[in-house]
């Protein structure tokens, strides 16, 4: 039974169920490689590729994969595409490949990809699964580039390598160090929490137009 439209499949992953910011999946790459925008882009490109390819392949083969060994089968498919992505990056973007290092191989254990296969691709048509994968991939990219942007602008005073503030800017070195990753994501989550809280308050106020005197 279909409860969502194709459009919803696509949109859902971008904001409402954003893999990094809402579901807290795929945190390792989101924190580890976002010390510059270029790295964040390379990482999300590789993840996007692995995600779309494995979603298409798994939803194509969903009838042939026995239920008992499905997780192992998914991991195998994902690992194959990760190996491909690793080789492609090494051939076409050797500088990024060197920067990202072991984290390309670690896309295999990104719970976000496995999660989408288990909860969506194994039950839906090829086209829907591709849409879902692209939506989630775009959501992942937005989260990574946002973090990479914050950390690179504050940590080095430049964006994609172009200086922004002139020579008087003192870079916040902490932002490109590991601690900065935790803090950036923490503050983004606090901001999202504040927005959510405000929306909830407004909805409550609409339901009860008579304001309480004591508050």
């Amino acid at each position, binding site marked *: 039974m279909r409860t969502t439209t194709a459009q919803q499949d696509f949109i859902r992953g971008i904001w409402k169920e954003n893999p990094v910011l809402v579901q807290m999946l795929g945190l*390792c790459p989101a924190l580890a490689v976002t010390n510059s925008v270029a790295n964040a882009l390379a990482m999300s490109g590789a993840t996007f590729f692995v995600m779309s390819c494995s979603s298409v392949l798994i939803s194509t083969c969903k009838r042939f994969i026995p239920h008992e060994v499905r997780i192992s089968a998914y991991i195998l498919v994902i690992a194959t595409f990760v190996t491909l992505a690793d080789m492609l990056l090494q051939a076409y973007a050797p500088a990024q490949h060197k920067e990202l290092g072991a984290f390309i191989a670690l896309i295999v254990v990104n719970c976000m990809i496995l999660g989408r296969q288990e909860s969506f691709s194994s039950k839906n048509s090829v086209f829907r699964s591709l849409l879902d994968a692209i939506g989630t991939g775009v959501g992942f990219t937005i989260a990574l580039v946002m973090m990479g942007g914050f950390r690179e602008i504050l940590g080095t005073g430049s964006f994609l390598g172009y200086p922004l503030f002139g020579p008087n800017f003192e870079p916040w070195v*902490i932002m490109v160090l590991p*601690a900065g*990753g935790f803090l950036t994501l923490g503050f983004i989550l606090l901001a999202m929490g504040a927005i959510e809280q405000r929306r909830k308050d407004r909805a409550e106020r609409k339901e009860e137009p008579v304001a309480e005197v004591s508050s």
Partner: protein
Amino acid sequence: MNEQTLFSIFFSAMIVNNFTLALFLGLCPFMGVSARVETALRMGFANIFVLVLTSLAAWFLNTYILETAPFLRIISFIIVIASLVQIVETAIKKLSPALFRQLGIFLPLITTNCAILGLAIFQTNRGYDFLQGLTFAIGAGLGLTLALVLMASIRESVEFSDVPGIAKGTGLVLIIAGTLSMAFMGFAGLF
């Protein structure tokens, strides 16, 4: 062949390049099971056990099998880790049901813990031999346990304090983790 001494490998893996706080590996259990000190300790020990086994398996694969087919590295590592965890789970279930009940869901979850695969890949990239790999695994495992227990102790004492409503949950945990990570930065450059 790597020329580092065992001592520096051990301390580098445990403190300076702590897997969780400096390399961001194994964050899922760090966020998920760090609410109680006791569960954190248990999770840490389960991790050390699997890390050591993985290190041995990765060394064996690298030395005897993968020399002829290096492109199969990622696939073979993940399969070996998944089956190792499965074997350990079955063995513990048979040998010590009490321990099995205590570990519960944590054992199967270790398969998708990036720290395990990360260890195997780092070990390969740095060319550690048998003993170096073993030291690396124990150091990394102790480092994970240390980070988990520190985090759990802080969270236990923060639980009843009055934090703003929006900061409750993951946001607060991440900021605490950032502070912890800053503290660990003090060790940078030691080795």
